[in-house]
């Protein structure tokens, strides 16, 4: 819909701009949540920044390392352009490992820290959906509804908007859980359950969803797994708290 933004003579890719803005918003939300939860704000914020940084660098280096023959002749290509060329799985593992070891080394309380990270993670996911809506490869199934969007002459489900709604609902659920004074860890689980339930529903309307060989939506299967795991942990945590 809007793949690039023109700033005078400079053309910038919209998706990358939205992702950069999203990272900044996510980190700000983590900082505010940490303060609200009376956590060690500088350390919690540093953990989030370190996780994002490590994820970014490792995702890039893994991509470069796997294709070293191509980069050996073009070393500048390692650092530019940066709008593609990442191994996402490697980045995710690096980010999680960094957050885990930093939290452990600094003795951050695990459950409450997860509560502080929840709005940042949700904002990150919302940003990815927004970037995909504006300039990404995703699009919905054809549908003639009053809220359908016209994409190259075909009216379709605005599937990324559904994802954004799921994210906003999860943020509201997290905030309500926090205000209700639930035990540490429970707001994170409530947010995870809400968001995964939303994605379980919404991904059915995505036209180019990744599928298993049997034709099942991979995101739906993963979402159901996260939903069930969240509910199970919620039941255990609330039982323990009671």
């Amino acid at each position, binding site marked *: 819909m809007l793949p690039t933004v*023109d700033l005078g003579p400079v053309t910038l890719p919209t998706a990358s701009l939205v992702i950069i803005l999203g990272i900044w918003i996510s980190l700000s939300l983590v900082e505010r949540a940490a303060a609200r939860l*009376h956590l060690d704000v500088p350390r919690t914020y540093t953990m989030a920044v370190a996780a994002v940084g490590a994820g970014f660098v490792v995702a890039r280096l893994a*991509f*470069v390392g796997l294709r070293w023959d*191509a980069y050996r002749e073009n070393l500048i290509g390692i650092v530019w352009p940066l709008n593609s060329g990442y191994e996402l799985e490697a980045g995710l593992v690096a980010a999680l490992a960094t957050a885990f070891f930093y939290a452990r080394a600094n003795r951050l309380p695990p459950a409450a820290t997860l509560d502080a990270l929840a709005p940042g993670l949700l904002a990150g996911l919302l940003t990815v959906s927004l970037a995909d809506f504006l300039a990404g490869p995703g699009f919905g199934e054809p549908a003639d509804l009053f809220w359908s969007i016209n994409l*190259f002459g075909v009216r379709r489900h605005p599937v990324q908007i559904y994802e954004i709604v799921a994210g906003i609902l999860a943020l509201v659920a997290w905030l309500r859980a926090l205000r209700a004074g639930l035990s540490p860890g429970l707001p994170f689980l409530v947010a995870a359950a809400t968001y995964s339930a939303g994605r379980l529903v919404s991904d*059915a309307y995505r036209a*180019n969803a990744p*599928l298993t060989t049997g034709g099942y939506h991979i995101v739906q299967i993963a979402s159901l797994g996260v939903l069930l795991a969240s509910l199970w942990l919620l039941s255990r945590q609330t039982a323990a*708290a009671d």
Partner: protein
Amino acid sequence: MREPEPVSEIALPAGRSRGAPASRFTWVLLMLGALLLGSAWILYSREAPDTGNIAGLTEAPAVGHLAPDFKLDTLTGDSFSLSATRGQPVILNFWATWCPPCRVEIPHFQEASTTYNGQVLIVGVDDGESRAQVAPFAHEMGITYPVPLDSNSEVARHYRVNSLPTTFFIDADGVIQHIQIGLVNGAMLAEQIERLIRDS
């Protein structure tokens, strides 16, 4: 600075419970309901396994859509039609002689056209220039792949190319799999080509 208060010592609002007031039975019921409804929804949403059918796809310059067809004369005077390339992955690079990043990436395309000859077709659509402007440049750069001349930028407008270079990676079925706005380096090109060959 105030010392952070340990979480375990945070007082709960008066009258509020730490846990949701749900019994074990309620939780089991909730999980079973989620499992059954979720599984049913996944089954309902299941799509026919990919058979390579592109009948339902529309033409649009976007990922997941059929690449819009066009017909142009090339630098060598031949006629080039995108639809005639169906059955082979195509890399459609929009460029111009005045564009510095295009100059940087052209050797990668030239090398790929030799390395992957017969597996992938590299096509360099020149945007908005005449044969007289393009021919000496193409000779200097040693371009041997097809260079259709989009002298009035009609195809570039149809593909919504707002900046140069822009490259479309199109699979053997004619479906756009990736769009790179800006410079393509050798590694990215190799990665995308291998993906196109693998998926074809």
